[in-house]
């Protein structure tokens, strides 16, 4: 498993929760992507990326999330992104138009539930 200082991964009950922290930009987006991809086992139902502790994210982070979603989609794994209301991350994702592509949650618990019971929300089409 690739480790990254900005990434904390915890797997529980088939759901991998990756808590990101600090700043995500061009300088570390690729490494974070690698760390996340390396941290999600094949048998996992899905991935929750928690952006609550992220102080800065820009288009590199947005690109990273879009790419992860794409990749996980091949494997029929669900990606949920946690971005609290009024947070900086949420604003960036909204501006970038990602809320129409990704599934956003405001808390990790909500995200985890959505991963475990995908029927609550319609399955997103691949890519």
């Amino acid at each position: 498993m690739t480790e990254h200082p900005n990434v904390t991964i915890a797997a529980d009950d088939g759901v991998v929760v990756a808590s990101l922290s600090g700043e995500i930009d061009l300088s570390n987006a690729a490494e974070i992507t690698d760390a996340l991809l390396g941290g999600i086992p094949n048998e996992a139902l899905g991935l929750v990326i928690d952006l609550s502790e992220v102080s800065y994210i820009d288009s590199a982070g947005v690109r990273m999330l879009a790419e992860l979603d794409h990749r996980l989609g091949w494997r029929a794994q669900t990606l949920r992104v946690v971005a609290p209301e009024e947070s900086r991350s949420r604003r960036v994702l909204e501006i970038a138009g990602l809320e129409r592509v990704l599934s956003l949650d405001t808390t990790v618990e909500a995200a985890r539930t959505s991963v475990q019971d995908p029927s609550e929300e319609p399955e997103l089409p691949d890519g």
Partner: protein
Amino acid sequence: MTSPFGIRGDRPGVVPRISRDDLVAILVLGVLYYAAARLGLRLAIVEDNITPLWPPTGLALVAFLRYGWRLWPGVAIAAFLVNLPITNVPAAVLTAAGNTLAPIVAAWLLERAGFRQQIDRVRDVVALVGLGALLSMTISATIGSIALLLSSRIALDGFWGAWTVWWAGDAMGILVVAPFLLCVLTWNQVEPKLGLRRLPEALVMLALLIGASVFAMWNTGQLLFLVPPLVGWIAWRFQLRGAAPAVLLVSTVAAWAASQMVGWFADLSLTEGMLTLQLFNATIAFTAFFLSALVSERTRARERLQRAADDLEGRVRQRTSQLVEANEHLGHEITERRDAETKLRRSEHELAEAQDLARLGRWEWDLGSGTVTWSDDLYRIHGYAPGAFPMTFEKAVELVPEEDRQRIERNLAAALAMHRREVPDIEYRIVRPDGELRALLGRARMFFDDAGSPVRMLGVVQDVTERVDYDRQHRIAETLQRALLPQDLPMVDGLALAARYLPAEVGFKAGGDWYDVIPLVGGRVGLVIGDVAGHGLEAASVMGQLRMAVRAYALEGHRPADVVAHADSVIRVVAPDEIATMMYVEVDPASGAVRFVGAGHPPPIAIEAEGARYLELPKQPPIGVAAGWAYEEFVVDIERGAKVVLYTDGLIDRRDIALEEGLERLLAAAGTDPGRPVEAVCRELITALVPGEAADDIAVLAMERLPVRDEAFRFRMPAEPAELARMRRALGGWLRGVGVEPEDTNDLVLACAEACSNAIRHAYGPSAGTVDIEAHLDDGAVEVVVRDFGRWRQRRGQDGGRGLALIEALAPSMRVERSERGTVVTMRRTLRGAVSV
């Protein structure tokens, strides 16, 4: 005027007939003569026919002078009629003959003497007195006296007395009357004309003269002396036109007084009275006419002189203008000739130089016969006298070192095999007789016959030794120097910085100049400029070490004087034989305090609103000269908007001008347009001071302490993703510092970071460049400008547009300008909250 004695008519010697006009003239003359004679007789002293003044004689003379002697019958008859009542017929006839003959002779003599009737020359006066009066009148006196003697009117012993009186009377008639008549008759022929303007003066003089004459004559008190000055004055003022009437008037008054024996003449005997009267009249007449003629002559002389002067002036003017013209022409010609000579000399010089520079030699090789022909220059290039020995291919190749010989042979073989006209250029060396190696560049053509066999080669050879050496040295030194100098200057808050470096174009001089800008803690910055003595690789390498040493000491936080002192120590170690001039300047943009430490370096220039001046710092030695010298720093406080220019001596020290003049020129160039930006200062100083090729390295470093209102954000980052965070913090800090709300701040930082990321991703290759960020407040908005200096490649990845989309959402008015020199992204966002500027 035709001569009155000349012969009229076509045929000489024929006496013309007397015309009716002549008869009238004779008659008129006769009547006038008679009247004048009667008048004259009233003044008779002796008997009744000898008078002290005999006016008719003057009348007759004037008549003969003006109208010719043919009027003589009028005179003769009138004289006869006058004398008849006072004598008998024979005496009257005799007297009349004498009275007629005398004026005829007088007129003839005067005519011969060239007498002018205007009597405006001294010689006319002398002629009139001598010939006209004294000499001619002896005739009438003699004949008249004989007539008196024959008619027994006088005794023999009274003959001379009578002769004298007669002679004097006739002479006075000539002297007194003739000038008056002539004056009247020639009145309008005399210059200057007398206008009415002078009438009052004339009347006053007339009155004075009459008064003086009458008073003098009727008074016994010897007052005659009153009269001559007055007559003289009149003659002086009016010349003949005043003198003649005055003389007539005075003489008449005097003669009348004498004849009446009154006044002054009362106590005199007849003889005494006669003598006195004649002397008086003669004196008056002669003096008056002499003076008048003299004045006339003077006047004419003055006029002639004036005319001559005018004429001379005109000619001088004309001559001067001709001279000026000629001079201009000459000057023009000289200039043209000089220009032509200069041109000729230049073209000759240029030709010689070109030939010398080119060092071209020519050769021809006849492949059939094997004959090789060299041009004279080719012999010289090889170090031989032209035609020193017959040339063959083998001989030529012998002059080439072994390793190059093979290359030549391969080149030739390849050309023959390829069967091509063009033989590839080849650079090779030769060994001269003295062992010197020279580098040559050879070019050749091959010629073939119709069958396609090579028959002939033609080639030129150029000596490129110096160029090769020079090019190599210069290239290395310049490359080294460029590598050692800062690629770009850091951005420093509150300062604008610019630098220029111009390597020497000629000779091996590139190498020793350097400059540096070192950001220090607390917003301060260190500026360095220096010049290692000497040039070339050695100097460039010393310069590189010094630059790094100065940078290290400055960053360690040493005081400016210590930085220079340490540099002094460093140069002793790395290059004991070298010296360098340098100046280290520490600037605090906030306070404006500038600390200078100079080490033998030319003085810095301060440019303020009112112009430029040298900052005269105390002199300190260059580094590497005086071991242990205690360098001192000197503080100068500069205003906002002021600039400081540092430079190396290549800017002022030129061979063709003195150092002082270079400094003056630099100051003048620096003082023009004090408001221009530092970039322009650097560029324009070099253009102004070194218009052509630089003979020495030139480095110029300029700094401006920016005005307070320009609190712009300036940041330069390496185009590396890892640098983005630093940029974000700096920009965020600046935005918060100028009072921008957190949400605006966050959005602007994000937009800027997106632009920077794009530049990092697209503008540069693996060896990254830099990205400049500028931000400033502008009327309730923030404008952020992101500038890179690369050329964008095609977009990589599918989703490169996300960044721009983000920027557009965050800063709706966004502009992207791409050019050869890079890309500029300008973003502008209107702020929500009010911002205190």
